[in-house]
C-alpha cells in the first residue's frame, strides 16, 4: 500500500501545479490591471508565487518520495537518528534569508501604496454607507467640503492618466473600498478620513466592490468605477452640477446639514435616539 499512498500524496504537488497552469491558461487569473502601480503588485505576487511554489514542490515531493522509499512493508528497520543540528541551522539560515528578501523587496511598494501620500487636493470624497457608495466631487470652485459640492451615488468617475486622491469616509459601519482592477483596497472607518491614491491608465467601466462585511446587503453594495478622458470627466461634472441645481431646494442651506437630511445614516439615527 505504500506506493498507493505515496501516489496519493504525490498528486498534491502535481495537481497543484496543474491547477495554477490551467487557471492561467483559461483566464482564471488576476483581474485586468488598469492602474499605474498594479503591475508592481502583480509582480510581487508572482515573485512570492514562484518562491513558495518551489518550496511547495520540493517539500511535497520529498514527502511522497519518502513514503515510496521507506514503506514499512519492505524496509527492515528504521535508521536511528535524533536529528542534525547543522542541517537545521543551515536550513534556518536559507529560509531566513528568503524571508528577509521578501520583506525588504516589497517595502518600497508598500510605502508607495499606503504611506507616501501624493501632494494634491482630494479629487473626490467616497462615502460608504449601507448599502451604497456616495461620491462627492468638488463644485465649480474646485474645493471639496463646501456648499457647492456635487453628490452622486453609485458611480465613481475619474479622469484617466491623472493622479487621483480619494478621501475615504464611512457614515455608519465599516466598509471596504475595493477596486480589483486597480489593485486598491482600503477599509472605510466611521470617524476617520483615510486617503487613497491611484492613477488609472485605461478608460472603461470597472467594478467598485465592498470587501468588508457591512450588513445583510453587503453582497449588493456594488458601485462602478468609470475611468474616462479629462473632457468626458468635466462633461460629467457639468451634467451633475446642472442636475443638482435643478432641485433648487438645496442651494440656501449649508451642505453638511443637507447631507444629513439626505442621507440619515444608521449610526446617526441610533446615536441620536435615546438608547433603549
Amino acid at each position, binding site marked *: 500500500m505504500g506506493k498507493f499512498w505515496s501516489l496519493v500524496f504525490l498528486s498534491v504537488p502535481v495537481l497543484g501545479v496543474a491547477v495554477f497552469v490551467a487557471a492561467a491558461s483559461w483566464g482564471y487569473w488576476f483581474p485586468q490591471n488598469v492602474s499605474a502601480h498594479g503591475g508592481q503588485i502583480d509582480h510581487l505576487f508572482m515573485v512570492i508565487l514562484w518562491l513558495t511554489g518551489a518550496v511547495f514542490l520540493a517539500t511535497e515531493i520529498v514527502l511522497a518520495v519518502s513514503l515510496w522509499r521507506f514503506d514499512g512493508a519492505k524496509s527492515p528497520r528504521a535508521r536511528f537518528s535524533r536529528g542534525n543540528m547543522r542541517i537545521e541551522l543551515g536550513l534556518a539560515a536559507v529560509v531566513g534569508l528568503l524571508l528577509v528578501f521578501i520583506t525588504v523587496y516589497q517595502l518600497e511598494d508598500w510605502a508607495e501604496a499606503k504611506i507616501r501620500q501624493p501632494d494634491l487636493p482630494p479629487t473626490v470624497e467616497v462615502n460608504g454607507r449601507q448599502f451604497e457608495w456616495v461620491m462627492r466631487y468638488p463644485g465649480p470652485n474646485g474645493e471639496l467640503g463646501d456648499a457647492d459640492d456635487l453628490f452622486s451615488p453609485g458611480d465613481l468617475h475619474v479622469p484617466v492618466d491623472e493622479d487621483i486622491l480619494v478621501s475615504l*469616509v464611512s457614515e455608519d459601519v465599516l466598509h471596504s473600498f475595493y477596486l480589483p482592477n486597480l489593485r486598491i483596497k482600503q477599509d472605510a472607518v466611521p470617524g*476617520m478620513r483615510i486617503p487613497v491614491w491611484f492613477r488609472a491608465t485605461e478608460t472603461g467601466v470597472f467594478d467598485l466592490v465592498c470587501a468588508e462585511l457591512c450588513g445583510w446587503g453587503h453582497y449588493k453594495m456594488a458601485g462602478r468605477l468609470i475611468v474616462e478622458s479629462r473632457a468626458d470627466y468635466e462633461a460629467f461634472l457639468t451634467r451633475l452640477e446642472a442636475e443638482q441645481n435643478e432641485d433648487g431646494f438645496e442651494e440656501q442651506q449649508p*451642505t453638511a*446639514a443637507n447631507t*444629513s437630511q439626505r442621507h440619515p445614516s444608521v449610526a446617526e439615527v441610533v446615536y441620536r435616539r435615546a438608547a433603549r
Partner: protein
Amino acid sequence: MATEDSSGDNAQHVTATGGVGNYIAVFVGLCLLTGMSFLTTSEWWPWRDQPGFTRTFMMAVACAKALLVLLFFMHLKHEAGWKYILTLPACVMAIILAASLVPDVGFRLRSAADRAEPANNTRETTIERGQENASDQAPSDN
C-alpha cells in the same frame, strides 16, 4: 532514583517574611506615597502648570506603591527564582498591548484635537500624515 523527591506538603513551603514591624513600615510608606500623589491636586504643588511632569510623577508613585505591595505584602522579596517567570511575562505583555494601542488609536484621535476645529467637527479625524484639506467638514455632522 535520580530525581528529587516530590513534595506537595503545605508546611514545607512557608516563605520567610519580614515580620509585623516590616508590614507597618510598608504601610506607612504606602500612606506617604498616596499623600504625595494626592498633594498634586492641591495648591501647594509647584508643578501645577506642567501636567506632563505631574502625571509622570503620579505614575512613578503608583509604580513605587505597587512594587512595595508586591515585594512585601505578596512576599516576592523572599521568593525564589520562579517569581520572575510568573510575573515578568504578564507585565511585559501588558506593556506591549497598551503601547501598541497608542500609535494607532491614541495618536489618531489626537490629531483631531490638534486641529482645533469647531466643536461640531470633533468627530472627524484625519490620518496623521494626511495634509490638511478643506474637506474636513464631516458630511454627517449638522
